[in-house]
């Protein structure tokens, strides 16, 4: 076993970053999500929990319009990022995703060098003017992802050659490098061993200082450890949303209680 790090779980922020109102998602004729209203705070870790198939990942993918890449997915309702509707016709999803970065369930480093993996985002978004600036971003992103010490001597090696936990931290560094405002994480630890999980959890807490972090997790312990706000999804509905401490100690909805006590899941 490992020592659970002592992480901050109190809500310290009140600025709303993302506002969702009446969000409905359909895959073809099947409704996957109904009437989700949620306010996600800046510089806060928000956890989405719920049994598999409950729509938590679907909602996460709405926040940076990754559902656009699925041909039969349809999103209704309103999601505002800093007061601007991200589903507005004028919004380019590509530009949106630069602001709302994403880390996936399975580590998916590109088959390129570690350096090129991290430099990919800044390059395509034109964030740098010189090689020196790019070097600096790569270094600081890897430092933020707590990977710098391990890889600084082998930046030219393939990203796919790292261990699982290192790969996931590389993906976090890659997402951080584009200087997003929100960081979405879709079960980022599900493919990792406990030690790597602890490292990534610690990292998530640190990232909170710079970003609004939204994390989907199937592990209630993880949600309790890293998040300040928690949303519980069930069968495509947002059942309960509130402070993590509140949800885990004193849930107001019986379904939330059943889930937390392990009766549904």
């Amino acid at each position, binding site marked *: 076993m490992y020592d659970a790090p002592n992480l901050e779980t109190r809500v310290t922020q009140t600025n709303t970053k993302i506002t969702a109102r009446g969000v409905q998602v359909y895959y073809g004729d099947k409704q996957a999500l109904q009437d989700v209203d949620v306010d996600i705070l800046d510089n806060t870790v928000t956890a989405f929990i719920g049994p598999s198939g409950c729509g938590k990942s679907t909602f996460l993918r709405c926040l940076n319009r990754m559902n656009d890449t699925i041909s039969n997915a349809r999103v209704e309702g309103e999601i505002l990022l800093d007061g601007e509707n991200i589903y*507005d016709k004028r919004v380019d999803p590509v530009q949106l995703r630069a602001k709302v970065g994403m880390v996936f369930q399975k580590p998916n480093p590109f088959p390129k060098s570690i350096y090129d993996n991290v430099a990919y985002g800044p390059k395509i978004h034109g964030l740098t003017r010189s090689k020196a600036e790019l070097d600096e971003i790569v270094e600081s992103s890897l430092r*933020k992802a*707590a990977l710098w010490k391990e890889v600084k001597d082998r930046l030219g090696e393939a990203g796919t050659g790292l261990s699982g936990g290192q790969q996931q931290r590389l993906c976090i560094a890659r997402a951080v490098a584009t200087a997003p405002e929100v960081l979405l994480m879709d079960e980022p630890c599900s493919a990792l061993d406990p030690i790597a999980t602890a490292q990534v959890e610690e990292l998530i807490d640190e990232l909170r200082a710079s970003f609004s972090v939204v994390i989907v997790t199937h592990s209630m312990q993880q949600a309790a450890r890293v998040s300040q706000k928690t949303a519980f999804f069930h069968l495509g509905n947002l059942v309960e949303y509130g402070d993590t401490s509140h949800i885990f100690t004193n849930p107001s909805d019986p379904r939330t209680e059943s889930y937390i006590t392990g009766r549904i899941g």
Partner: protein
Amino acid sequence: MTDATSSQVPAAAPSPARSSLLTQSALMKKRNAAEARFKAYGVAAICVSLSVLAIMLWTIFSDGVSAFKQASLTFPVTLDADALDPKGNRERAEMMRVTTIGYTKLLNAQLLAHLEARGISTEGVSDKDVAAFISRDTPARLRDMVLEQPELLGQTITVEGFATGRIDGYIKGRVTRDTAALDTNISVAQLDLADRMQDEGILDTKFNWGFLTNPDASDQRPEAAGLGVALIGSAYMMALVVIMVLPLGVAASIYLEEFAPRNRWTDLIEVNISNLAAVPSIVYGILGLAIFINFAKFPQSSPLVGALVLTLMTLPTIIIATRAAIRAVPPSIRDAALGVGASKMQTVFHHVLPLAAPGILTGTILGLASALGETAPLLLIGMVAFVANYPAGPLDGGVLDPATALPVQVYSWASRSDPAFIERSAGAIIVLLAFLVTMNIIAIILRRRFERRW
């Protein structure tokens, strides 16, 4: 602790000024333009391929359709008994002494007489040039007819025969007055005469069944050349290929898929199969020439040798398709059969094979389609030779008689000098494509009908 305490690290990137999502940055516009360009390249690539395909099919169809129609001359001929049977005894042996030259003279004279009788002026056209309207094929046919039915002698019959290639070309628009002026084989005056004859109904175009049934003809008579021998040759070859390739391919696939142990020997077979599938087809022609003709002394140009070569050539593709079909049968079926006490062999033959049959059949038809269109190896085993006689029936050893094949006929006509043969060549392609389309449609229907979702 890690080295990532954010307070010690500078911000990741020079934080860009909070930009609105609703306006596009200049860079974003550039990136989107690049995106549109990239997508356009894809569309362009597809358009290029499809338009080349369309142009090719269109040119071939427009060149080839006319091969199915043929200008023919229709006029009455009195079969002069004195000229055609000088001894007057109606003996076949005696009558055979009159060669086609005799019949040519008769036909020429009768055509001239008929034109005169109908009041068609042959002004500016010498008698010899009028005679040149009649295909050299016509006297030969008339001679065969008279030899068969000597009682026709002395009667007046209506002869319908091909017009020569140039006249045919003029009626179909291939030969124009401009090209005729440069051509020593035809004159503008002859074309004028052709117009007048057409008005009078002596010269007419008809659907040309002969194109599908006649054997090949020599360089001088493109109008008489047909696909008969090539069709028979191709049919013999395809039948033999099916007979050989299906059992061999299925047997080999069953062994490799169901029985073969994973060892070096089967690895060697696998490597061989995938490489053979990619060996240039002409190499199979060399193999056929060396093994089947020079070594085993099979007759050159025979459908049997062609079929052997095509069998070896299509076998790898068929094995690959068959194995895929066998592999698609779920293991649960095998387990079920083995579970009720069937032997491995019974399982395969009673359960796996029937379930894989539609897939095997589809693969075989597609393999056959590619074999039907294959040309290069057949050139080397002599199927490009000029064959004027039909091969015998399949039970009389016809597969050992010289024959040609459809695609080879396309090639050999294309390499002749008279442009009339290009039309024939394109016409042969239409026939070939018709067969291929039919085979592919059958394969698609089979696939649709028996497609199974396990």
